[in-house]
């Protein structure tokens, strides 16, 4: 019986040992090779001191080692914490501190860059480093007293029989860090059961089978990206990893790797639509899925022209509930702006302020009920209680044994039950598929020491969904140099968080209680 994430791999390896499982550049691994590699690394992790439930960070670019790490940590009985490789050291350190990270798997170069930021993370007991990109083993990483293990050596760890499992499906499997409307990123806790349910549900409606070859362009730190990997291994499909800058690189991979499935965020589709997708035929591409924001209608038009035989699925999900809705491709003509209906085995409610169901066309909050509702935020029960609550629609006799997820997304439903996105209930910004908290951006602006007040808002953008505009007020009326402030920002946050525009003001608009009046700033921008 499959009830833990690595069982998906074990099962597929038993059924299709010689089938191609994982491709990255010139490296091609069969299911047997992936399963054997994971068993060895899992055994190596346990030998290094890993205990049940330990959190292990994975800070790697798309690579064979990254995929092996995810399943190895599960097999070793731990919790994997995938970290987007675009994050800067301070953000990685926040995640490590917040989740009490015991071990971190990364490259020698990245570790060197991270060490100054990690010095006060006392939970870290060991590092695992992969080979350098040139294939040379790392030599001289100096880490005070923290042991550094080599991934290559772990791959050679002896495995006697099968490693006994320590956990059950209700145990924590992964923590995905994501931002809300305030504060630093929070860790969304997913159980093995959550991840497996997401994988089963999505592979059902996408009809994924062992004949599929899936191209992974989304990071595995992103719920949809991770789900792609899980569905692939669950169904014994092949997953191909790439890192890209140019649309051509994706197009070349689609063609040369005979890709049948591709998941993207709106920016990926915009790149492809502007990058020559119309010049090629993709008869093998069976389906594509969009998530992480609405697909611009102009881009959708190009995609439909370029991919006449490909099924296009518009999806919606939030990390706290993993995956929520999809629009069946046959509805695309009639409702191209809809986010669809609930995924299988899931109920999506649109509730008004009183907790009652909205009428058609009435705007309310999207509330998700189903097996992918996460376990909440790691170490933050107050924030969890604001998002995961007992369902107001269930009979009180049931008690609050089941929680539903309040998304914070405002939506409306048409007469036929199809959903349409309206906006956010709070100030959270979404750009290029990333959730960004205004306070995180504002905090970095304050760190310049030159700013008295700051407020960041999202400005609609055709390609990115939103871009960030920040309003700043100088300390003591000293003149501000916007270029210098942006220079400061780029070192302390990844590109998607850096404001696109700065506007200097004498004073920010305030509410009667003295807080920054964000709606007034949005109105100022005509929003």
């Amino acid at each position: 019986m499959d009830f833990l994430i690595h069982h998906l791999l074990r099962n597929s390896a038993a059924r299709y040992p010689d089938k191609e499982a994982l491709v990255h550049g010139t490296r091609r691994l069969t299911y047997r090779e992936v399963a054997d590699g994971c068993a060895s690394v899992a055994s190596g992790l346990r030998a290094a001191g890993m205990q049940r439930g330990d959190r292990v960070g994975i800070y790697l670019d798309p690579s064979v080692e990254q995929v092996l790490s995810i399943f190895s940590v599960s097999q070793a009985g731990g919790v994997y914490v995938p970290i987007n490789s675009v994050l800067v050291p301070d953000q990685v350190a926040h995640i490590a501190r917040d989740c009490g990270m015991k071990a971190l798997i990364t490259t020698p170069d990245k570790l060197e860059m991270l060490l100054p930021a990690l010095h006060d993370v006392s939970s870290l007991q060991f590092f695992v480093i992969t080979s350098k990109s040139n294939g040379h083993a790392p030599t001289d990483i100096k880490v005070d007293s923290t042991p550094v293990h080599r991934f290559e050596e772990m791959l050679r760890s002896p495995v006697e029989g099968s490693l006994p499992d320590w956990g059950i499906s209700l145990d924590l499997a992964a923590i995905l860090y994501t931002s809300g409307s305030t504060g630093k990123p929070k860790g969304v806790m997913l159980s093995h059961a959550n991840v497996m349910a997401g994988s089963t549900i999505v592979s059902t409606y996408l009809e994924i089978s062992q004949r599929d070859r899936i191209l992974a362009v989304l990071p595995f730190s992103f719920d949809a990206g991770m789900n792609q990997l899980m569905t692939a291994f669950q169904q014994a499909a092949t997953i191909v990893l790439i890192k890209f800058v140019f649309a051509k690189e994706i197009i070349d991979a689609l063609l040369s790797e005979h890709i049948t499935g591709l998941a993207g965020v709106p920016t990926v589709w915009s790149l492809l639509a502007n990058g020559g997708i119309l010049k090629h035929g993709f008869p093998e591409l069976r389906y594509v899925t969009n998530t992480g924001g609405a697909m611009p209608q102009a881009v959708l038009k190009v995609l439909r022209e370029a991919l006449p035989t490909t099924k296009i699925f518009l999806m919606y999900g939030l990390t706290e509930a993993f995956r929520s809705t999809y629009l069946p491709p046959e509805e695309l003509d009639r409702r191209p702006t809809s986010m669809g209906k609930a995924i299988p085995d899931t109920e999506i409610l649109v509730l008004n302020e009183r907790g009652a169901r909205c009428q058609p066309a009435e705007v309310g909050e999207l509330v998700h009920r189903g097996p992918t509702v996460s376990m909440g935020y790691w170490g933050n029960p107050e924030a969890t209680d604001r998002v995961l609550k007992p369902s107001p629609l269930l009979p009180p006799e049931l008690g609050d044994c089941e929680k539903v997820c309040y998304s914070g997304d405002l939506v409306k439903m048409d007469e036929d039950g199809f959903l349409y996105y309206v906006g956010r209930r709070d100030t959270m910004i979404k750009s290029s598929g990333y959730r960004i908290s205004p306070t995180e951006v504002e905090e970095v602006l304050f760190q310049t020491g030159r700013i008295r007040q700051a407020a960041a808002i999202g400005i609609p953008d055709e390609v990115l969904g939103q871009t960030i505009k920040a309003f700043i007020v100088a300390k003591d009326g000293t003149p501000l140099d916007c270029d210098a402030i942006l220079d400061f920002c780029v070192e302390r946050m990844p590109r998607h968080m850096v404001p696109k525009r700065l506007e200097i003001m004498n004073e920010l608009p305030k509410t009667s209680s003295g807080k920054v009046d964000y709606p007034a700033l949005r109105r100022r921008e005509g929003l």
Partner: protein
Amino acid sequence: MAIGKAKNWVNGVSESNDAISRIREFVLQKFPLARKRKVENSDNLLESGVIDSLGVLELVAFLQQEFGVAISDDDLTPENFKNIECMAQFVESMLEPQPGAIE
């Protein structure tokens, strides 16, 4: 270091150097990380993450407008965009009187 080809066909101004400085100015102004790292004209901007996939699109829009060239998606390759020198050479090749006469 020696930069591109020195062609004196616009009022005696070296077109390569002119293209380099115009592109450089745009890169430094548009990509704060380039400014912060004080990138050289020969530094790889793609591998270092200074310019990502969306940054390339901004560059394309700039080059088309600034130099009046039409850039097709076949031209969107790392060879043409990896550093400021390559971008300048690429634009210059498009400005050649005989199209396709790339040295």
